[in-house]
């Protein structure tokens, strides 16, 4: 490779700093602002003697179509206001990111109506009898539609899976005591570190043994070890991987993430795991935030209807999942990217295509940091601070129904929008075109991840996770 820099004049070699990304420059920051704005408004309305409850609407349990129809009609203004609020908040964010509002708004209207239909199905009194948990119904319906029909291109503008899940995670923070984050953080980080390192090296070494390019093996490894698609694109950028390598890693993440949405809750039930332990296992062994929350929420929902057959509070599954996945695994993405960028530029051969990579910068750690985690922590701290002014009895009697329950309902909306979007964007046929070597390497990591994740969650740290689930 020719030394390009040696042919340049001093002016030409001057490197201008990368422009600083603002606090509105990506979906992560917008999810923080939207989530915190909703939590703040909920609090301000409560403080002024009102509540955000009228907006956080969802169908009530129903046994007949007429009952459902009456409930929907009675709350029609609430649904219209909720749609307008979501469309406004998401629309402003996406417009600022230069996405096309003219396509997003009609697509989002259809998605919102689809999510409402999912809520209606899961509110049916017999839904639990047929295992019609909202997350799984949303996913399966979405998968059926997207794989049986060709969706128009403009409709895809409304299917912002990552954006919806990040908003939901920030809102989830408002329902978790900050003290729990502080207490659970170190164990979550410890467990995640063990599993992440083992999974990465399993995939990386298997990939190398199978003859894969080191850059490709690294993208596969971190995709399986840290946070799925986000990690794959982050590491692909850090090591200057080829486009098809990023695509294959992402495809494998999606493939296994979709499989695990169904397998992990089923296996947890078969193994008799409590909601908290199952959530921790899913958080350790799922490959993407959105897919993991679908699995954890499905398990929590089935615990609600299991008549005590599944131990632990239903919400504990999503809570321990989030502690493990978001706090334990996701926050390291920038460090993985920086370290591998350094290794790639200093230890590995230069890419054959002639690209001369710039010097890795520590600033990349922050640039790629999942900012929505900050919103998650801030939301938790804010609500915990508010709750500190109330006794436990008053908190349960007043704050929970007037503030926490409506925020939980808004969070569930964000999650259902996300789950439906996952199904609607996943083309099963596209998941088969990965090649055997990458598939085998990634699957080696999947096997290790599942086994070690189970042992750590259900045995080594079981007492710890269970104690969280009783709170």
């Amino acid at each position, binding site marked *: 490779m020719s030394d390009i820099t040696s042919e340049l004049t001093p002016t030409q070699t001057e*490197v201008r700093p990368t422009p600083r990304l603002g606090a509105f420059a990506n979906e992560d920051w917008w999810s923080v602002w939207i989530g915190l704005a909703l939590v703040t408004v909920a609090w301000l309305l409560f403080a002024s003697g009102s509540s955000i409850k009228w907006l956080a609407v969802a169908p009530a349990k129903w046994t007949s179509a007429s009952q459902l129809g009456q409930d929907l009609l009675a709350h029609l203004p609430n649904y219209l206001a909720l749609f307008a609020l979501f469309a406004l908040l998401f629309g402003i964010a996406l417009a600022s990111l230069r996405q096309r509002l003219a396509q997003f708004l009609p697509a989002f209207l259809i998605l919102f109506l689809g999510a409402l239909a999912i809520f209606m199905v899961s509110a049916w009194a017999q839904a639990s009898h047929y295992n019609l948990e909202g997350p799984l119904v949303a996913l399966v319906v979405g998968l059926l539609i997207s794989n049986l029909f060709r969706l128009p291109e403009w409709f895809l503008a409304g299917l912002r899976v990552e954006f919806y899940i990040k908003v939901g995670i920030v809102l989830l923070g408002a329902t978790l005591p900050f003290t729990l984050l502080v207490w659970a953080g170190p164990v979550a980080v410890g467990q995640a570190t063990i599993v992440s390192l083992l999974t990465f090296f399993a995939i990386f070494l298997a990939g190398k043994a199978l003859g894969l390019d080191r850059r490709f093996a690294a993208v596969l490894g971190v995709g399986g070890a840290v946070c799925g698609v986000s990690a794959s694109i982050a590491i692909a950028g850090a090591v200057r991987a080829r*486009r098809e390598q990023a695509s294959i890693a*992402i495809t494998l993440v999606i493939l296994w993430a979709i499989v695990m949405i169904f397998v992990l809750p089923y296996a947890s039930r078969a193994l008799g795991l409590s909601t908290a332990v199952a959530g921790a296992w899913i958080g350790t062994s799922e490959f993407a935030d959105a897919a993991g929350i679908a699995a954890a929420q499905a398990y929590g929902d089935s615990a609600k209807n299991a008549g005590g057959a599944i131990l632990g509070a239903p919400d504990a599954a999503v809570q321990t999942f989030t502690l493990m996945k978001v706090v334990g695994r996701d926050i390291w993405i920038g460090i993985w990217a920086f370290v591998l960028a350094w290794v790639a530029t200093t230890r590995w051969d230069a890419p054959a295509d002639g690209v001369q990579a710039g010097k890795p910068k520590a600033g990349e750690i922050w640039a790629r940091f999942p900012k929505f985690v900050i919103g998650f922590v801030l939301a938790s701290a804010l609500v915990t601070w508010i709750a500190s002014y109330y006794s436990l009895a008053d908190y349960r009697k007043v704050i929970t129904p007037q503030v926490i329950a409506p925020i939980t309902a808004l969070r569930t909306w964000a999650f259902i929008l996300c789950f439906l979007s*996952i199904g609607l964007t996943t083309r099963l046929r596209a998941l088969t075109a990965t090649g055997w070597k990458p598939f085998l390497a990634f699957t080696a990591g999947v096997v290790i991840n599942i086994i070690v994740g189970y042992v750590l969650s259900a045995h080594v740290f079981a007492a710890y996770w269970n104690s969280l689930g009783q709170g």
Partner: protein
Amino acid sequence: MSALRDALRPVVAGAVSPRCADCIHRLNDRRAIEQKVSGLAVLGSAYGASIGSSRLCLIHECLVSPEDRCAHFSGKA
């Protein structure tokens, strides 16, 4: 003033800085990146923080950073 200085920089220097950041082959449109990297929008996003300043090079078909360089540089008009 700084805008004027930036505009005149190529004229003064005789050429633009050959970094990927200034190259027409670096695809900066995040929507287009989502379309080109199949699956990215399913459980991820090109609009999130994780992609950082990495973008697709349309010549080499790989992800590049703004400070990267290569012999195929072609400056933006």
